[in-house]
């Protein structure tokens, strides 16, 4: 489902954000990407949804080679992904409901089905009572849940959540992680970045990718502990 071979990413200003990344992820896997601020976690996710392209090496996501050659194919690929952005990217002036619908409008889903999916997703993230609130009036944690609902309502094959625990207190952060990981199933891969390693301490049955200054190391299906990466 994801295959990265010797992938590097150098931004236009010369910053080398990722170096020689090799990574394989299969369908239905749960992946945590950890690392300090500025280490390259977001950069990795950007590569996965075609917001940036590898400067060297080869990367394929859901069978799609990630190159600049065919923008339409990248757009199509994105329809299979449920992204939860670090800064949410919700559309202001709209209700939570409308934001969630927005992620489905171009997928060829009937209006009735769209509404049903959106309702279910909002209920699942615990926002039943806030469906019609404008997103700018929601708390940080609520807005984040809307972003998650938008990502999952479209039934993606790959959920990419960038730093979903940032700015949340410990309990809420754990709740969000539980929520996100609950969407993992045999077809749906969930990838979560976080620099709060204490939150995933003791987690098992997942793949842990540690990013440090653009280099990654991968630990599979082990019980997570800081000590895994030396």
């Amino acid at each position: 489902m994801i295959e990265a071979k010797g992938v590097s990413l150098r931004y236009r200003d010369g910053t080398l954000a990722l170096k020689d990344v090799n990574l394989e992820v299969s369908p239905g896997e749960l992946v945590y990407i950890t690392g300090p601020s500025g280490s390259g976690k977001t950069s990795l996710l950007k590569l996965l949804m075609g917001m940036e392209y590898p400067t060297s090496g080869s990367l394929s996501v859901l069978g799609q080679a990630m190159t600049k050659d065919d923008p339409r194919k990248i757009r199509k690929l994105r329809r299979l992904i449920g992204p939860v952005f670090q800064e949410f990217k919700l559309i202001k002036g709209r209700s939570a409901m409308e934001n969630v619908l927005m992620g489905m409008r171009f997928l060829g889903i009937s209006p009735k089905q769209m509404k049903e999916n959106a309702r279910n997703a909002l209920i699942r993230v615990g926002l039943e009572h806030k469906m019609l609130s404008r997103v700018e009036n929601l708390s940080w944690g609520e807005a984040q849940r809307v972003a998650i609902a938008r990502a999952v309502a479209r039934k993606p094959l790959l959920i990419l959540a960038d730093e979903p625990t940032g700015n949340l207190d410990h309990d809420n952060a754990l709740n969000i992680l539980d929520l996100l990981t609950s969407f993992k199933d045999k077809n749906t891969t969930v990838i979560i970045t976080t620099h709060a390693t204490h939150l995933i301490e003791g987690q098992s049955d997942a793949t842990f990718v540690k990013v440090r200054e653009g280099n990654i190391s991968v630990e599979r299906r082990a019980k997570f502990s800081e000590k895994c990466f030396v």
Partner: protein
Amino acid sequence: MKNVLYNLGYFLKEAKKIIQLNLLSNIFSFLGTGLILFMLAMVVCGWSIGNRLVEMLQKEAEINAYFQEGTDEQDALKLVETIKNIEGVSDAVLIDEAEAFRRMEEVLGEEAYILDLFEDNPFEAYIEVRIHLDDIDTILEEVKNLDGIDYVRDNREVLDRIQSITEGLKYLGYLIFAAVGITTLVIVSHMIRQGIYNNRDQINTLRLLGAPNSFIGFPFVLVGMLLTLGGGILSAVLIVVLINMGYGQMSGTLPFIPLPPRDELISGLLILIMSTSIILGLAGSLFGLSSIKNTGNNGQ
């Protein structure tokens, strides 16, 4: 296509939002487009009236031949016969003094009382010659040289003038058409660009979610079409009002000017305005949409 049907309500709401985001400019664009289209309609209207006039005058091409002094009725009738036989002449009739007077009375209508100021009938008898316009030069020459004919008057001058005005209107029409095209395209594409710029965050997010450009662009095309269609309807209303007023006036004061049938004129103009506005709206918004490609900086 399915997505368009499923999201019609959404697209209309989006279009409304895009218009509201820049309401004043959009209102002025709508008014501006309406007024230029109205100008176009007026010129086309003038052109088709002129055309009609020329057509009628050409069909009715006639010359009047006046007698030398001392020509009696007998000679006059002989002259009529001679003229009838000239090639290119379709008919010739003698208009005597009384008939000439009566005709002038008719032309003057209510003003005819001024004729009472004359003690005698001031008009002379003449021969009215209906001709084929193509042969006018040779006929003029021949009739003028006939014994008993003093001079000849023709309506070619009037015809030429109307023809050149109509011709001028045609070119003015082309110019205004070009102006309408360019201005509308610029206005609409500018408004679309503005709308895209104001919505750049939303557009960017939609792209990241995988929305195709056609989906993102649809509300903007809708806005462009609404602007020009609105302008088209505005100008249509104005031109219909103007034509109705004009026809009312003309039939009262200048009854002898042949106007094209009102309904025909109006429906022709409506078709012209509406199709022009739809085409320009579509072209302008597609033109403006090209800037979507450069919005945001997130890969594709």
